[in-house]
């Protein structure tokens, strides 16, 4: 049987119509996702383009540092493990020498060298951990937070190798029994995943500042680095500040001011 051009076009057009119809019918039948438009951001949520923290080292002392660490670790069910090879830390104490090894201040007083500072995930603008994560469990949110999606972490620890600040910890064992006091509002982690500071995304999304900032008695200031009128920008605009390992190009969002001052108690 020979097909005339006219008939061929008719059949082809009909088939195409049927095909499109099929796709839309399939879409109607596919009821997998609930309506995406039904999801909103909490109106109370803090919004910024790039969250950052300014640490005023002169206001830090052993007590405030402990307060910050305790507040964070209690809030996020971070287990207490003494063995430094297995410990989990979101925000912790580190000496000046180890926090800023590139400064090479040859004649710096021992006091300042060994002065403890508060360090945490830097929520880098160019985060190496995000680049290496094979499952996108670590990703950068629109507001600059370098986040962990624990559901996706496969425990490969590439991110730990990539992070130049040691801000990540691996769960070598089930952390549950080692949590002193469970916060029932926040999940724990399981054996075999990497965890780190999430800049209290859960608090920001409900309109509250990070737990460490709240507990710090003003030593830590939180704000949007992209907003020229924010408090952090005012401080950074008027003071000399340093960041950890800036030469690596990770562009950290945590700034330190008044480092090595005599005010340090």
């Amino acid at each position, binding site marked *: 049987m020979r097909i005339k051009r006219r008939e061929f076009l008719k059949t082809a057009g009909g088939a195409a119509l049927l095909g499109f119809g099929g796709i839309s019918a399939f879409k109607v039948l596919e009821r997998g996702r*609930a309506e995406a438009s039904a*999801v*909103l951001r909490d109106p109370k949520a803090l919004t910024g383009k790039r969250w950052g923290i300014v640490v005023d080292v002169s206001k830090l002392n052993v007590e405030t540092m402990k307060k910050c660490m305790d507040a964070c670790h209690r809030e996020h069910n971070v287990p207490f493990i003494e063995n430094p090879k297995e410990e989990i830390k979101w925000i912790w104490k580190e000496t000046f020498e180890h926090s800023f090894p590139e400064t090479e201040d040859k004649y710096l007083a021992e006091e300042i060298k060994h002065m403890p500072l508060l360090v945490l995930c830097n929520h880098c603008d160019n985060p190496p951990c995000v680049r290496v994560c094979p499952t996108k469990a670590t990703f950068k949110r*629109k507001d600059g937070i370098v*986040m962990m*999606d624990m559901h996706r972490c496969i425990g490969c620890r590439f991110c730990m190798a990539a992070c130049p600040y040691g801000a990540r910890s691996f769960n070598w064992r089930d952390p549950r029994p080692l949590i002193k006091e469970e916060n029932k509002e926040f*999940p*724990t982690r399981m054996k075999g995943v990497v965890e780190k500071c999430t800049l209290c*995304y859960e608090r920001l999304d409900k309109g509250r500042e990070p737990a460490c900032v709240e507990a710090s008695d003003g030593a830590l200031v939180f704000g949007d680095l992209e907003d020229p009128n924010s408090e952090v920008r005012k401080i950074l605009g008027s003071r000399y500040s340093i960041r950890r390992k800036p030469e690596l190009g990770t562009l950290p969002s945590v700034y330190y001011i008044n480092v090595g001052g005599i005010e340090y108690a």
Partner: protein
Amino acid sequence: MYDGWKIIIGIVIFLGLLTVPFFFAGEKATAKPDPKLDTPEIMKLPEAERKCVESKDYMKREHMKVLNDWRDWAVRDGNTIYTSAATGEQYDISLQNTCMKCHSNKKEFCDECHNYTAVNPYCWDCHIEPKEEEI
């Protein structure tokens, strides 16, 4: 047939052994799961407010997809308010702080069907389940 009665007795014993678990388990093995909705938290609510975020039928069928979506919205997008398609009411997106605040009976609610269908969701490796009083 040589020794026919021996063979027949053997077959009877074999069949008996094979079916023993069914006799012992009885109804339990085939009983349909019956998730309980009568937690103290739900019973405290007035009758009209005893509703889930979506219709019962939808939740029964699609709750795993709802949870999947909720997780992505809250963790990855930072959107934490869910508007119910059924009632238009708004809910906080949170397994621990929204779902389990009403369904405080994980054993009788979640596990009931999950055990029956032999699925093992790993929610509770990380999420803290509500404390249940031993009955």
